[in-house]
């Protein structure tokens, strides 16, 4: 391979990278702390890419690769939608679309004691928070926020849940509010819960509103913000 002229890491940020690309040379950056997010790994003296996606950088020192997949890589602090698979003595086993099942301790509820353990059947949809996610271990979940309050976590009753990619979930949760939700929210009344693992739950007074919201979100995934607004308007016209 012909030697390439040395390029600074800033030329790789916001660019498409593929597995094997070397993005940082640590021997040239002494006495600096760098935080690596998902998709990057340290290989001796260099940082190389593990997953294909866009390389992102946020000041002061965090690098990560942003990609949209159908599977989820658990990380601490995320809010996800899980489905109960089994109930054991100490934990519920919950499927969060990750490499392994996650554990939800039976006491991880506000005011939870051994006497009032909730009874979740197989297939119950839960809105939970990921507490711990280390490699090789099953992730741990909780239905309380960091201060011990219930804060909207728990089972989601009624409504409709659909699965999509992690990229769509991030778009729906971005601030300022994503154009699809904003346009839908102006005319319709509905409840929505978005999990970072690619699951979305919608609930509304009538089934036709639920179907409209779900279909709109799924169809506008790959459009630009302007196109999204146009598409949403046209879909809502059809409903009137």
């Amino acid at each position: 391979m012909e030697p390439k002229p040395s390029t600074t890491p800033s030329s790789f940020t916001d660019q498409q990278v593929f597995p094997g690309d070397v993005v940082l040379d640590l021997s040239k950056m002494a006495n600096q702390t760098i935080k690596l997010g998902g998709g990057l790994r340290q290989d001796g003296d260099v940082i190389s890419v593990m997953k294909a996606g866009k390389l992102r950088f946020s000041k002061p020192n965090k690098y990560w690769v942003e990609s949209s997949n159908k599977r989820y890589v658990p990380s601490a602090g995320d809010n996800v939608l899980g489905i109960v698979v089994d109930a054991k003595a100490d934990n519920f086993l919950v499927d969060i679309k990750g490499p392994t099942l996650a554990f939800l301790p039976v006491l991880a509820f506000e005011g939870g004691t051994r006497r009032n353990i909730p009874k979740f059947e197989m297939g119950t949809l839960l809105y939970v928070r990921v507490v711990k996610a280390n490699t090789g271990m099953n992730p741990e979940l909780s239905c309380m926020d960091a201060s011990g309050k219930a804060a909207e976590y728990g089972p989601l009753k009624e409504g409709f849940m659909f699965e999509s990619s992690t990229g769509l979930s991030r778009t729906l949760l971005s601030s300022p509010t994503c154009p699809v939700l904003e346009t839908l929210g102006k005319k319709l009344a509905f409840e929505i819960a978005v999990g970072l693992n690619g699951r979305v739950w919608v609930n509304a007074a009538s089934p036709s509103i639920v179907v409209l919201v779900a279909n709109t979100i799924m169809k506008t995934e790959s459009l630009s913000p302007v196109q999204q607004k146009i598409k949403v308007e046209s879909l809502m016209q059809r409903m009137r």
Partner: protein
Amino acid sequence: MDLEREGGRGANQLRPIDCSRNVLSRAHGSASCSHGETRVLAAVYGPKAGTKKNENPEKACIEVIWKPKSGQIGKPEKEFQMILKRTLQNICLLNVHPNTTTSIIVQVVHDDGSLLPCAIHAACAALIDAGIPLKYLAVSISCCLTESGKILLDPNKLEEQKMKAFVCLAFPSSVHSVLTEGSINGIITSLTHGVMAGYTFLTLILDEYFQCVEQGRAAITPLSNILKKKLQSQSAE
């Protein structure tokens, strides 16, 4: 005696390659790759919890299922499965998700020569689509040796059947790097079939196998660029 290739291709010229991602809606990752007329479809499911019985639980396990275009799964399919499994085990990072299984299903849609390279490209693209952590990508090339000792890259089915020897090679793909020197060298997989000669002519040692390797290696960079370009144009949102 110069060999005329179908379509007027040069000895080092490859057939048009096309690659597309996310072709199957239910698979966690999927890709379809074609080299000229040869087409292969690959689907990836995983990582899922649990490994098979005899596998090391401290590493991820990769399982490959090869489905031929027609007929039952027999010995040639099992051989392809084993070759593909060993190749993919080399490029995947196995310690990121220990005790999990990733299944890769390869379906041959049409075989017009150069089947294994096409399958390796399809499986790599499907792994990228699924977000499985990889060390690097693999690019693969097949070459065949004519009676007169000439080396042809990317043979089609007719050429493969007429040749005296056949080599299929997989290399790590070329990467974009901030480092000025240092590149990934080496061969991931090499599969040979037939008789290749090694002989000395005056003071030159002409070993046909190594010539094939050199010609294949020369094609890595253009091949990597084509594949990356195809995969990039779809993931951009």
